[in-house]
């Protein structure tokens, strides 16, 4: 038997073992002629305990009991301390949970290691989607490399007999469920053999859709439903835990081979250049992603030889499931943002721990006399340190437990608010518990060890003589206390500034949305390509719809545009002449400006018959030409530097045009971005592949929706969808609004912590110096001078802390400049506001206790001592 095991066994049976030992000794004693020679059984028992080596545990238990007892006696401290740590650790745990679910774990598909997503790549471009015929070509010509090819094409479709509701449908290859590894909750899922092109049309509903929209009706299996007005049979309901490959689970799954049942003229399954699908694959056993890429180069060249749409320098780039199908640069960008958020939440923990450490130290200084007595009785310093550390263990343990609850609640709330699909599992796992333990240990160092070590260093025995006055004063002036105040102030200042910047970026988005009037606007979309209309037929159809819309008296204006505000596909260019500025190009009807109420600053509208004219936004004019006086000039300004390829050259030529007007800034596409400008061109025939119609109501945007839908349904095949723009705006701003509210909340809470810290330090200092203050008042000192003397103690640390916070806020703001936060770097208003708030709160926290003591007539204190 192992020695350790034996000792633990002894510990577990200790009371019985000790009873036996006492019996044994008593027996021995009774057998002796002179029992007095045996010795004292109590003492011998104590020595025997020593032999098993568990005495330290007894001491620790004693200290723990003392700790728990003191906590019970001061419930307000216990609750405050627990809450502070719950908040500090919990915030970090929440972030960790998010990272664990969203970044560290691949989607929970069967055999995730073998999954890749293929994007179409060439030396100059990357496209995330692949033409359907190419996927089939690759599938047929890659034996031994790919075990299977899995396809998805997400699309909005009409639901119900009149197609009145929109649902998110995914056209998937029929091996989807088998490869992902999930079956049906009811009925069956899609299967290769059953769901062929010629098979009976079926859909599989997602569990969430079935539960929320169909009331979890089990009889739905086998019934007929209408999708884009076509009757289809519900084959089954997917399992609740079915994961999505891009964090999305659609409302329903439709076999991609049956697409032509819905859109007989759709070219999706035949065209090598039109619409395109997301292509996933499982690698054959033993084939690495890199090997697959090289092997498929040959396949791609073969495809290129047969089909001109595939260039011979193209290849398929595999993205791993282990990286959540993200490109490395996307992953690094996400990681950078997350590590910065991690740094900020760590900062909250540091502030919280420093605050609590300060509190613990103040409380312990009240006990220097007791500790002095213990030392005088022979306790060693290490024993005192151990005692003080162990006493703070219950607080840390409660904080850690609280933080786990906090993280669970927060993750659940975020998942609910963000509408995350149910397969994302935010329950507490061992990893999370380990992180909580590590953070708890780190806080124990700050909350328990540092103050204990500092206290034990003092001449505690002297404290017995003067009641602890001197030692308390020494402790009050230690560097550590000041460092703790500095870190609290710096942390809360930085967090306040970041919160201020986030609030400002939301404000800016709202303000920039004033550049176009979305309140009374609505958008109509109809994917005409599905019905096999050639592009020029689409154009005439769109203009017919526009006329019908304009004929309604409720409609004030209407325009066709390639990308409606707050959504739509937009062409984004970085011109050499304007580094760091993203130019969003929209092709628009001349009426677009009136519809969206975007004023022209100068010049005139273009007309549809002037293909080589452009209208630039004010900012684009200023950044590219340095002036708004740009009418008649060529766009873009001839940029220096060689063009990279013939393709780029051609694109540049196509971009060229003469500036006929300058429009006011309207960040209609990316409302919260701070690095965008707009460029408008007249609509060309080829733009009608994908356009939308925006309309402006005379009274209320919601009234437009039936008008728009009605106008679009001239051709009975067309299933349009219409939405009010304010819904888009609210949806778009929801994330930033929640983020800025959260950050403001966190900023204010840490501010409260820091103020509590300052308050604690000052009031404690005042309590120690009541006598001195009394004497000074008795000698006629003036109040302002006294206040200065009292507050001076915290002034330096606060100023130093605030300075550190400001300095750190500048790089933080710069790192959060791009998506998704769009912070202004060194936004003076955010800085000023944060500092003003901090100065006011900090001054109140410092002056309040000082003022209190002066008001209470400190001379009184002299009479008592």
């Amino acid at each position: 038997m192992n020695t350790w095991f034996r000792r633990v066994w002894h510990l577990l049976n200790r009371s019985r073992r000790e009873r036996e030992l006492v019996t044994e000794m008593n027996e021995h004693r009774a057998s002796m002629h002179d029992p007095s020679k045996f010795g004292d059984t109590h003492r011998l028992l104590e020595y025997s305990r020593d032999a098993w080596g568990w005495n330290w545990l007894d001491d620790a238990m004693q200290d723990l009991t003392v700790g728990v007892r003191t906590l019970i006696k001061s419930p307000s401290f216990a609750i405050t301390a627990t809450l502070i740590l719950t908040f500090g650790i919990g915030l970090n745990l929440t972030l960790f949970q998010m990272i664990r679910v969203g970044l560290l774990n691949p989607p929970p598909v069967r055999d995730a290691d073998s999954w890749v997503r293929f994007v179409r790549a060439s030396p100059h471009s990357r496209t995330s989607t692949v033409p359907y015929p190419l996927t089939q070509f690759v599938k047929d010509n890659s034996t031994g490399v790919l075990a299977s090819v899995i396809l998805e094409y997400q699309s909005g479709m009409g639901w119900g007999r009149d197609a009145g509701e929109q649902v998110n449908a995914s056209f998937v290859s029929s091996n989807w469920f088998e490869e992902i590894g999930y079956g049906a909750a009811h009925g069956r899922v899609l299967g290769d053999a059953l769901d062929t092109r010629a098979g009976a049309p079926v859909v599989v509903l997602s569990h969430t859709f079935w539960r929320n929209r169909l009331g979890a009706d089990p009889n739905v299996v086998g019934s007929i439903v209408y999708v884009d007005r076509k009757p289809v049979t519900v084959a089954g309901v997917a399992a609740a835990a079915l994961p999505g490959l891009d964090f999305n689970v659609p409302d329903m799954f439709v076999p991609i081979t049956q697409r032509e049942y819905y859109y007989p003229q759709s070219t999706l399954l035949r065209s090598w250049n039109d619409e395109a699908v997301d292509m996933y694959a499982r690698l054959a056993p033993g084939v690495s992603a890199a090997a697959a890429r090289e092997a498929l180069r040959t396949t791609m060249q073969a495809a290129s030889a047969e089909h001109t749409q595939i260039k011979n320098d193209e290849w398929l780039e595999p993205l791993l499931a282990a990286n959540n199908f993200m490109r490395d640069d996307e992953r690094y960008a996400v990681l950078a943002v997350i590590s910065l958020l991690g740094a900020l939440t760590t900062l909250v923990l540091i502030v919280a721990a420093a605050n609590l450490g300060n509190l613990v130290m103040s409380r312990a200084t009240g006990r220097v006399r007791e500790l002095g007595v213990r030392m005088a009785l022979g306790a060693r310093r290490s024993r005192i340190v151990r005692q003080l550390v162990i006493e703070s263990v219950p607080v840390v343990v409660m904080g850690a437990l609280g933080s786990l609850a906090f993280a669970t609640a927060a993750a659940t709330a975020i998942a609910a608010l963000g509408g995350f699909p149910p397969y994302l599992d935010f329950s507490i796992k061992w990893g999370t518990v380990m992180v909580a333990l590590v953070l708890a240990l780190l806080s124990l160092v700050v909350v328990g060890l540092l103050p204990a070590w500092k206290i034990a260093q003092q001449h505690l025995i002297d404290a017995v003589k003067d009641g602890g006055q001197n030692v308390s004063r020494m402790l009050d002036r230690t560097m550590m206390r000041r460092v703790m105040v500095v870190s609290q102030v710096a942390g809360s200042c930085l967090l306040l500034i970041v919160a201020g910047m986030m609030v400002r970026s939301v404000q800016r988005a709202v303000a920039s949305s004033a550049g176009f009037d979305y309140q009374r606007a609505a958008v109509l979309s109809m994917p005409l390509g599905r019905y096999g209309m050639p592009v020029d037929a689409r154009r005439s159809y769109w203009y017919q719809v526009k006329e019908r819309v304009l004929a309604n008296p409720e409609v004030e204006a209407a325009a066709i545009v390639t990308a409606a505000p707050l959504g739509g596909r937009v062409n984004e260019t970085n011109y050499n002449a304007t580094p760091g500025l993203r130019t969003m190009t929209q092709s628009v009807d001349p009426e677009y400006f009136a519809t969206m109420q975007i004023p022209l600053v100068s010049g005139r509208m273009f007309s549809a018959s002037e293909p080589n004219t452009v209208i630039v936004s004010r900012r684009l004019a200023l950044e590219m030409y340095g002036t708004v006086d740009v009418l008649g000039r060529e766009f873009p300004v001839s940029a220096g530097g060689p063009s990279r390829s013939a393709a780029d050259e051609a694109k540049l030529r196509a971009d060229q045009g003469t500036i006929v007007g300058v429009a006011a800034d309207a960040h209609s596409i990316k409302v919260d971005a701070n690095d965008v400008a707009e460029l408008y061109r007249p609509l060309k025939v080829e733009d009608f592949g994908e356009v939308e119609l925006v309309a402006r109501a005379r009274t209320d945007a919601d009234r437009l929706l039936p008008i728009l839908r009605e106008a679009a349904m001239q051709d009975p095949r067309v299933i349009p969808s219409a939405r009010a723009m304010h819904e888009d705006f609210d949806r778009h701003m929801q994330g930033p609004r929640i983020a800025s509210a959260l950050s403001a909340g966190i900023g204010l809470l840490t501010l409260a912590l820091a103020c509590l810290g300052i308050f604690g330090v000052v009031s404690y200092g005042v309590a120690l110096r009541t006598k001195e203050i009394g004497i000074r008042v008795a000698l006629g000192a003036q109040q302002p001078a006294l206040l200065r003397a009292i507050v001076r103690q915290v002034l330096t640390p606060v100023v130093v802390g605030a300075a550190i916070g400001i300095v750190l806020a500048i790089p933080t703001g710069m790192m959060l400049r791009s998506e998704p936060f769009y912070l202004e770097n060194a936004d003076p208003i955010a800085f000023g506001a944060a500092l003003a708030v901090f100065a006011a709160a900090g001054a109140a926290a410092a002056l309040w206790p000082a003022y209190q003591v002066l008001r209470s007539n400190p001379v009184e204190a002299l009479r008592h001592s």
Partner: protein
Amino acid sequence: MPKSNGLPPGTLILLILRVVRQEPLHGYAIAQRIRALSSDQLSVEEGSLYPALQKLLANGWVKAEWTTSDTGRQVRSYRITAKGLKQLESEQDDYQRMADAIAAILQST
């Protein structure tokens, strides 16, 4: 650990291991045996046997079991283990080396 009453430090354990080598003994018998073997020269405070025995138990050098003594009392007798035998040998060697060294110094004048 208790102060050894006249015994050089650590030797009590050596003595206990030595006397339980032949046969399992209970505490009282161990004390008796030590006294008898030393011709009453080593007067041990008998109680201090027990912390030493606990140490032996903790290290796995002896095993204890309850039996009834010749006089009909419930006693716990201690039996040496293989590990204990090894320990006894090494302690005996150490002690011998130490005693020889001390003797050599004392006889050197």
